[in-house]
Structures are given as C-alpha cells and as structure tokens.
C-alpha cells in the first residue's frame, strides 16, 4: 500500500518521471575525436558531415564555458557523459511503425503520444526522438505527396545532402558559442523539415524528445527550411525520467525562412525539473535561432517553459530580409528550486522589419527567473519597429524575478518600446474568485492562466490545452 501511495505521489509531481528498460547501445564515455568518429560512423555519415563535426570540435576545444548567466550550476564534467545512446533495436532501422520495439511504443503511449492510432485523428505528423535517435516519423507519405520532407536529420543527411549541406550551420555556425559548438560536434539526431516553394503544410509537424538513459547528454539538431511562399507550424515537446543526477540537454534549432515564408515554432518544455529540494533535473541549455532570410518572411517562437532544473535559452530572430517579422511569445514558470534565464534576441538588419516580444514570467517557491533580451536595430534597418512587454508575477518572498533587457537603437527612423512590470497576484482578485467558491489554488490557477492568455492564444489548439493544464500543475503547492 505504502509503495503504491508513493508511486501515486510521484506521478502527481511529475507524471513523465518513469524510465523504460530498453537495451541501449552507447558510445564510450567521454568526448574526443574517436567518439565523434564513432557517432559519425554509426550514422553512416558522408565525409563532409564528419568534417563539419571535427571542425566544430576543434573550435570547442578553444572555447571557455560562459559564466555570465544568473543561475549558477556545478561544473559539468564533459568527459563524464555519454554522447551517444540508442535503443539497441534501432540499429537496423525499422521499416515501419509495426516493427518498432513494443516497449518504445509503450513509452510513447505513456507520454500521451501513441504513434499509431490517435495521430490519424489529430492529424499531426510526429517525429519522436528517444535519447539520441529518432524512432518514428508518422504521416510520411501524405507529406511526401506535397513535396514536404519531414524526417530524422540523420536520414536527411543521407537522402538530401544538398539541402542539409546548404542550410546546416548557416544560422548557428560551427564557430558559435560554447554549447552550440558542442552540439555541432556531437549532435546525434533530430528533425529535418523542408517545405517546398508555395506549399502550405497541411498539418502541424511535431517532435517529441525524450531522454531515457542515464548520464546521457542529449544533443539534437533541428533544421527547418521554409522555401519561398511556404508555411509551416512546428511543435516540440520534451520529457525525461526522474533521476537524482542532473542531465545536460544542449540542442540546436535552426530555422530558415526564405521570401514570403512563415515558420511558427511552438515548444512546450516539460523536462524533469528536479525534486522539491532541487535535486536532479535537466539542464536545458538550448540554442534556437531563426533567420528571416528572404523578404516578407516571418518567424514566430512560442514557448511554454515549465520544466528543467535550469533553463538557459534565448530563441532569437535575425531579421535580415526587408519587411521581415519576428515574434516571441513566452511563458516561463519556475517553482521549488528551478531556475530560468530566458528571453530572446531580435536583430534587425533589413529595412521595415518588425518584432514583437511578449514574455510572462511566474516564479514561486525558491525559484529564480530572469528575462534577458536584446533588441538591436542596426543603422541600416530603417523604419523598423519593436515592441516588448515583460511581466513577472512573484509568489512568496523566497523567489526572485529579474528583467535584464538590452536595447540598442542605432537609427532615427526606428522605434523601440519596452515595458516591464513586476507584481504579485492582487488580493482583490483572489478574494473575488474565492468568494465565488473557488479554492485558493484554483483561484491562483485561473488568474495565472488569465495572465498568460496572450501567449497561450498563440499556441496551436492541441498544445494550448496541454499548456494550460501544465500551468496549473506547475504551480501546485505554491499557494497557502
């Protein structure tokens, strides 16, 4: 009985905290050229890909780990990690879903992503990444009909080398910062999407990331290219089992939008946040960057960040094409001992570019949350506009909420407006809700959801419901 109760309690805390016993193939522990060659070899990569990795590794050796961020963490020993871990049954790739290891399917079922049935109803194409390998991609044929390529990036390297070669590293070069460069050297898998000219992707594309094996760093790489006049909406979800030690997740996401194209990228990040005392949890150090390369292109980031022990990421837009638009909508919730340092960068290079940033931060418990953002309008980006709004809610006096925007305006024909507020939930609102029969916790949930509404509205339907629930769950136990 006791055990059962415990199990239930655990599930209530973090319902994705289970592990799956699946035999893994791992690369030897540590980071060196041999490991990189091992990864490249097992993926049967062409020489140019290996060169790309080795170049990144050369660069990585010279880089120092950055330390300017607000949440400090114990030093990571990069030699004490596994850089490749794959379910054994995946070495010879299954041809279709029926060949998949039933245990894997079960895992995804638990996650609420039954790869086989339900998706037909929902009409979302899913690419599931388990530890380091992409295990299944659904709806491929239907997408192929339209000329859309949606597959694991390892497959894309084999089958569409010309596209990968052209765009991989064009937004996040191998010479970028510490974690991005590490990713370039050791990335294992991820998703690749190419939307051909003039095609409006008929369904949402989606990736689910799952870290299962212990001591593994997960390094995926996502590359999305929207050709002229195309449109795509992309969803990303992540979970990990509960473990006492911290795990590193350093992914790279590159988006390229050509003339008149639009990419909408939504994330619901729910990595394991560690237990109530701040033990364990994922370090989520992700580099996400979108390039509005063509005229009139648009990239929009939406993120709901509820998980991870430490979140440290700044999804950015480089607005290079004239009239291009960048948007960033974010909800970040930290509870217990979670820490987040997140925000965005909007770099205006082209004329008449516009950007909009809406960031909502909620911190409770002993957590610490920082919005850090950059708006940089260069001297050539005339007639550009930015609007930024960052609101923070604090619950209790053990947590912190910080706002650190950098605002650079280098020409007189552009406008930047920035607002930020920090406050707590007003007593009157709480009182009103409670008077109407809601419990304190429900009332807080309701008010917080209202506070976040502006961002939640940006999410695709299926995600919005999930996110809304998540917001409620994340704050459980923070009131009263």
């Amino acid at each position: 009985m006791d055990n059962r109760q415990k199990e239930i309690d655990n599930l209530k805390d973090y319902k994705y905290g289970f592990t799956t016993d699946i035999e893994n193939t791992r690369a030897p522990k540590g980071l060196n050229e041999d490991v990189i060659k091992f990864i490249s070899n097992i993926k049967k990569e062409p020489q140019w890909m290996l060169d790309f990795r080795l170049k990144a590794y050369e660069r990585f050796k010279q880089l120092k780990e950055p330390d300017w961020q607000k949440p400090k963490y114990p030093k990571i020993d990069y030699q004490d990690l596994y850089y490749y871990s794959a379910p054994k049954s995946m070495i010879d790739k299954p041809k279709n879903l029926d060949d998949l290891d039933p245990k894997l399917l079960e895992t995804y079922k638990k996650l609420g992503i039954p790869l086989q049935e339900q998706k037909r109803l929902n009409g979302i194409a899913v690419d599931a990444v388990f530890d380091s390998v992409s295990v299944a991609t659904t709806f491929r044929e239907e997408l192929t009909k339209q000329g859309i390529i949606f597959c694991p990036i390892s497959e894309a390297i084999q089958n569409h080398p010309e596209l990968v070669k052209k765009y991989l590293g064009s937004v996040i070069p191998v010479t970028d910062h510490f974690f991005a460069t590490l990713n370039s050297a050791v990335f294992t898998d991820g998703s690749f999407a190419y939307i051909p000219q003039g095609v409006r992707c008929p369904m949402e594309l989606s990736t689910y990331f799952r870290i299962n094996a212990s001591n593994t760093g997960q390094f995926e790489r996502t590359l999305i290219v929207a050709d002229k006049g195309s449109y795509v909406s992309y969803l990303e979800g992540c979970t990990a089992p509960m473990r006492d030690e911290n795990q590193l997740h350093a992914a790279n996401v590159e988006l390229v939008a050509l003339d008149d194209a639009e990419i909408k990228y939504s994330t619901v990040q729910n990595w394991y946040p560690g237990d109530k005392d701040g033990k364990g949890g994922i370090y989520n150090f992700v580099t996400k960057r979108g390039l509005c390369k063509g005229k009139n292109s648009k990239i929009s980031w939406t993120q709901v960040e509820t998980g991870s022990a430490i979140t440290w990421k700044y999804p950015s837009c480089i607005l290079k094409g004239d009239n291009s638009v960048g948007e960033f909508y974010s909800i970040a919730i930290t509870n217990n001992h979670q820490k987040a340092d997140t925000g965005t960068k909007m770099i205006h290079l082209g004329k008449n570019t516009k950007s909009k940033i809406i960031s909502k931060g909620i911190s409770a418990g002993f957590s610490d949350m920082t919005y850090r953002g950059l708006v940089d309008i260069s001297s050539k980006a005339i007639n550009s506009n930015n609007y930024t709004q960052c609101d923070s809610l604090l619950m209790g006096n053990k947590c912190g909420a910080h706002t650190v925007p950098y605002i650079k305006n280098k020409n007189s024909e552009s406008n930047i407006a920035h607002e930020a507020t920090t406050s707590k939930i007003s007593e009157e609102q709480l009182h009103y809700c409670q008077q109407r029969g809601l419990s304190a916790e429900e009332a807080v949930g309701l008010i917080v959801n209202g506070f976040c509404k502006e961002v939640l509205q940006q999410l695709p339907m299926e995600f919005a419901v999930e996110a809304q629930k998540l917001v409620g769950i994340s704050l459980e136990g923070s009131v009263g």
Partner: protein
Amino acid sequence: MKEQLQKDFDNTIGNLTLSQKDIEIKKFYLDNFINKGFPNRKEEDWKFSDLNQIIKKNIGELSFYNDYTSTNKVDTSVFVDGLEHNKIVFINGRIEKIDFDYEKKDQIEIIDQSETINQFNNNSSLSDLNSAFTNKSFKIVVKEGYQLTKPLIIYHTTNSKIWSKNINLRLNFELYKNSSLRLIDLFRDTSEKNFLNIFYNFDLKENSILKNYKVDRFENKNIKYSFNNIEQDKNSVSETFILSSGSNFCKNEINCNLNGEYSSAFVNGIFSINNKRHHEIRTIINHLTENTKSYQLIKSVLEDSSRAVYQGKIFVNSKAQKTDGYQLSKAILLNKDSEFNAKPELEIYADDVKCSHGSASGSLNEDSIFYLMSRGLNYQQSRELLINGFLLDVVEKITDPEVKNLIKNMIGIKE
C-alpha cells in the same frame, strides 16, 4: 602608462604631508589601478562606453600629477547671477574657495579629511585611481535640524593651463537629522582634453533632504566620470537631477542605498547632446527595507552622431516588501547616425512590490509636426516646440522653484 603613473604618484605624494601608513594605503590603491587599468567594454558596467578606448582616442597619454602649490585667481564672472548662494570653487581640481556666507557658522562644519583616507564602497578601478591621487578632500556636515537658507553651488572650473591631465576630486557630505541641503554642481570648462574623476559620498540621516543638481551645460572637450553614493536613513529624501550635455564624454553614476523605512530616491536626467558626444547615466537603486520608494525619469534628445546610454537598475531584496519602484527612459533620435542604448534592469526578491520600467526610443512624431505646421508654425519651430515640451517634463520634476528657474534659463526652455 605604468611608469607615468608611478612617477606622477611619487610627485603627488611628495607635496602632501601623509603618515607612512596613509602612503601605504595610497600605494595599495595605485597598484590596484595599475593592475586593472581604465575600465573597458569587457566589463558589464562599461559595455556601452569603453572608457579605455575613449581616453585613448580623445586624449592619448594622460598625466596624473597636478601642481597644487600655487593658487589660481578666482574669476567671479562665472558665478551665477540673480541667485544668492554659497560657493565651493574648484579650479583645475584645486579647491580655491569654500564660502558659506549665508549660513549660520556653527551649523555647518567643514572637516579637512585630506590626511585620512576613507574607503569608497565601490570597487571599480576609477575609485582606486581616485583614492590614490586625491589631493585635498573635505567633509561637509550639516548639523541637526539645520536647513541651509541658500543653495550651495560647486563650481567645477578648468582653464587652458591644463592639458591631458587627470583630475581627481572627492567630497563627503553628512546631513544630520532633520537637515536639508540643496547642492548644484556647475561645470564650467574652458580647458581641453582632460579627464575628471569625481566621487561624492552622501550620508543622509533621519528626515534629511538632499537635492543635488548636476549641470554639465557648456560645450567642452573634457571627459568626465562622476560617482554619487547616497546612503539614506529613515524618512530621508534624495533628489538628483542630471543635465548631461556639454562634455565630450560624460558618465554619471548614482548608487543609492535605501536603508531606512519610508526613504525615497528620485533621479531625473536629461541628455541633450550633439556632434560625436557620448554620454551615459547609470543608476542603481537598492531597496533594502520595507516601504521605500524610487522614481526615475530620463529623457534624451540626440543630434548628429551622438550617443546616449542609460543603464538603470532597481534592486529589491527579500526584506523590502511594499517597495514602489518606477523607471522610465525616453529618447528622440534626430539624426540617422545617432544611437540610444538602454539597459533598464529589475532584480526583485520580494513579492509584495510594485516595480515597473519602460523604455522607448524613436524619431520625432511626424504627425505632431504636421499638426503644428498646419497651425502655421514652420518646421524648425514645430521641432523646437516638441523637443522643448519633451524635455520640460523632466525639468518640471525639479522640486526647488529657484533652481528650476535657473536651469530653465540655462537650457533656454520657455514655457
């Protein structure tokens, strides 16, 4: 630079009568400065203004020794007309005159602190430089319950006798219970290419009021750094107004610690700069206890290829419930080469607070100009009217009517 520093330091020490211990302390600061050098853009606080580069570009080699043995003649023509005031006159960094003619002698105490070196709560290399080279420093004490009848104007005058010099100044103020002081810093420079490094420390006891107006209005080619540290006890009020306009480069830093309940701090500033001038204001308001309040308003008008930077930080620690913090910066860029950088920062650890900041920058509103022109004004007049109104907002925040008029006249703002 190191040899120059050593040599100038020895010369400076030679002219002072210091105990062996004090010389050791000064040496310690000198070594600190030699190690760190002038701040550069790698330091977060100097991210937007690389002082090391600015000094190199504008001045080249600095010399740190100033001969303060002979007196300078005080030119009375620089004194402000039409406003009775007390004076402290600095000429080329040398104190020439301290005069509190309008006040009761026993209510104000002037203590010569040249022989004691007090540490500054700022571990920047510029504070080390200041500690190593300050020549004379005074502490001005306003006794309990005394409110100065007239404002105190500190004239910072430099003339063409000095060139490529570094001048270090330091003043301490202590305002006892229920006292008040109005202080105007007026910069009058006819020298070129010098670097002024000014440190003020204010200690505000219960119920005291400090009003500090810093006016850098007249065009000059000097580089200035000024640091105000303000410690505030219960119920005290500090008001700081900065007019940043004349120098080639100027950075004003205000560090304000609200230590006592119900204390409040106000910082208002104007950047009105042209040519290639580069000015910065950096404020740090530390809310350290309950029921404190701060308000900041910074407005900029930038012409030609000028550049303004505003870094403002509101810090609220976990004890400081019921804090009210507000910060607003607005900038008008008049030329395509002008640049405005801002870093308004909030760091908050208490939940029952009201803190907000806003920052906006852009061009003059064409619609407003059109409106005014349709009423018969020409383009130039409309532009001036709009800019005047924009800046007047800040000047109106000055609570002292006499000083407000003085400053209005100085900028030429009409109502």
